[in-house]
């Protein structure tokens, strides 16, 4: 083997470790007492305690926030997909000035600083009497989910061969049926990963959730904020436990759609 290859492999292994070690370390730390954590020489062996996890899991707010997060994120993602995926299809299939502008518009929504959106949204939801409701947050998150879904699904549909859709038309499928029975199934893996990505973005969203909820619709990142402090302390053990908890759903999602995620960003079409 050439020395260059060896060096590259070393670099890759290093990069892999840079991912794995901090995560395992965090997992480990979630089972340490503060006394085991706050030591000069990191401890690999210690008596694991369940306290941190217990603290996190037994918080009433955690269960509720988990429920909220699940409902809010999945609703926003589902509605975003329902609106965004068809829109992406049109943008991918009909190439003209209008659709190009629409595509850029969808992207440009990501430019809006959340700081600027928070206050207006707050005022709007208060005046509609829907402040601190799941619906308010779902609707607000739609900007994120729709635009990301559109943005990432357009290439997925562009990769569906036109001829296949024409074959469908010859098979008596109208445009709608062509979309649902042919284009969507063919592009499904990549569309799914686009949707998964939008899920991750809203799952992790903090600022809007902070400003638009008080308790009823509070989501998990807000609860994480709660756990990043206890008294005057940063409770590192609890914090690590919270990190573990908060990271689990996206990781499970990765395991589920990992394969699609891989292909989402490659350029190969399914028929190559």
């Amino acid at each position, binding site marked *: 083997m050439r020395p260059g290859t060896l060096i590259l492999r070393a670099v890759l292994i290093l990069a892999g470790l840079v991912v794995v070690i901090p995560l395992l370390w965090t997992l480990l730390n979630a089972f340490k007492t503060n006394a085991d954590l706050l030591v000069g020489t990191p401890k690999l062996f210690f008596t694991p305690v369940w306290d941190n996890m217990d603290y996190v899991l037994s918080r009433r707010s955690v269960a509720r926030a988990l429920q909220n997060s699940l409902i809010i994120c999945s609703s926003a993602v589902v509605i975003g997909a329902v609106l965004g995926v068809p829109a992406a299809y049109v943008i991918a299939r009909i190439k003209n000035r209008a659709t190009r502008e629409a595509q850029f518009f969808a992207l440009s929504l990501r430019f809006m600083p959340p700081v600027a959106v928070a206050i207006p949204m707050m005022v709007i939801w*208060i005046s509609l009497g829907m402040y601190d409701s799941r619906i308010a947050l779902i609707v607000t998150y739609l900007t994120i989910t729709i635009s990301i879904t559109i943005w990432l699904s357009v290439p997925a549909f562009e990769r569906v061969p036109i001829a296949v859709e024409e074959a469908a038309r010859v098979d008596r499928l109208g445009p709608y049926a062509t979309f649902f029975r042919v284009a969507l199934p063919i592009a499904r893996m990549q569309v799914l990963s686009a949707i998964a990505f939008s899920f991750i973005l809203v799952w992790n969203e903090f600022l809007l959730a902070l400003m638009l909820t*008080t308790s009823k619709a509070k989501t998990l990142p807000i609860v994480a904020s709660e756990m990043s402090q206890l008294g005057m302390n940063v409770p590192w053990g609890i914090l690590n436990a919270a990190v573990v908890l908060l990271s689990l759903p996206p990781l499970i999602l990765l395991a589920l759609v990992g394969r699609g995620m891989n292909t989402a960003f490659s350029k190969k079409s399914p028929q190559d």
Partner: protein
Amino acid sequence: VCSEDLRILAQPRDGLTLLEDYVDEFEELSGAGFEIDYLNENDRRAKSQADASTVGSYDVYYVDEANLPLFASSGWIVPLPGYYPDEYDYDDFDAGMRQVATYDGKQWFAPIQGGGDLLVYRTDILEAAGIEPPKTWDEYKAAVEALNDPAAGIYGTGLRGQRGSGANVWRWLPLYALHGGKWFESEDTPINIEAATAATQEYLELFQYSAPGTQTGSFDESTGAFRAGKIALLVESAPLGGMSVDAAQSQVVDKVAFLAPPAPLAGSGYAHGFAIAAAANPTDEEKACAGLFVAWSTSKEQEARRLEAGQPGELTRTSTYQSPAYVEAFGQNLADAMAATGNHTQVLFWQDPRWQELGNNWGIKLEELITGTRTDVDGAVKELDEFARSL
């Protein structure tokens, strides 16, 4: 008294977690339950400001020394008298804390936590070096310098470097006061420039002996370093006392002792507590209900429970410090120190809604000076003066 569940916005504390276990007790007492939302300090401040100024969805706010003036002067909270039942004995609260809870001559909140400063030191290190626990500021400085030994992993002291009116500025305030500094003695002299300069220089000098991590750290970093056995002695907010003798949080449990801050240094008084929200409680009845919660949650019974649960950082009543239970739990030494330190405690910051802005502004400059991003103390102080004038 109450018809609907109360909603409270607070900062996570063990004491409040404990309080939640007794929600039934409150329900029996008042006819309604309560629910607490928690956010960390910065998020809580941002959130409560935004909430109070718009929706007003919380019945009780958690306020602290820094945002009391803003909340009080904006009319977001109402003064306690009239809604705080007498039987809960407001005057039993630590004098320093009561002082902090006063603004514009009125009492606004019942403290949950607070206090002044403690001098905390390592008995083993001082003994080994043959140094007496410092009684005066000069002795203290000498001890810090003498005991600083990075090679052995021991640093003289721990300070706060992180920006913020409640962080680096907080530890700087006693020095400012020490040099005779006051806030807005008159319209023309918002700050005492000489005092500020001297205090800053002294603070920076001391920082040479401060443990690593504290340059951008706050309470957590410096007390953490102490509890990890890296620091010889320091003056910090009083909760450090209880934490450092808690085996779950400290590795130096048997090697610490406590004193009041070295004379003539004043303790920087602070307090956090519950206040009655104005917007969510338009009627007297609702205010009374919120007031009852404020009183109940900070009552002697609750304090006793906290003490029993080993939460020394959240005790606010003089009667508690003097109780045998306290001595038994934390030792005579800490009980004495806690009792002694109350006399040293003062309100050192500027009690005004604009304090946070001023304090934070200074905090940034101070942090720049500490981390060496800038070096001109005079210039920084002058900028602070200008900024203060612009307010």
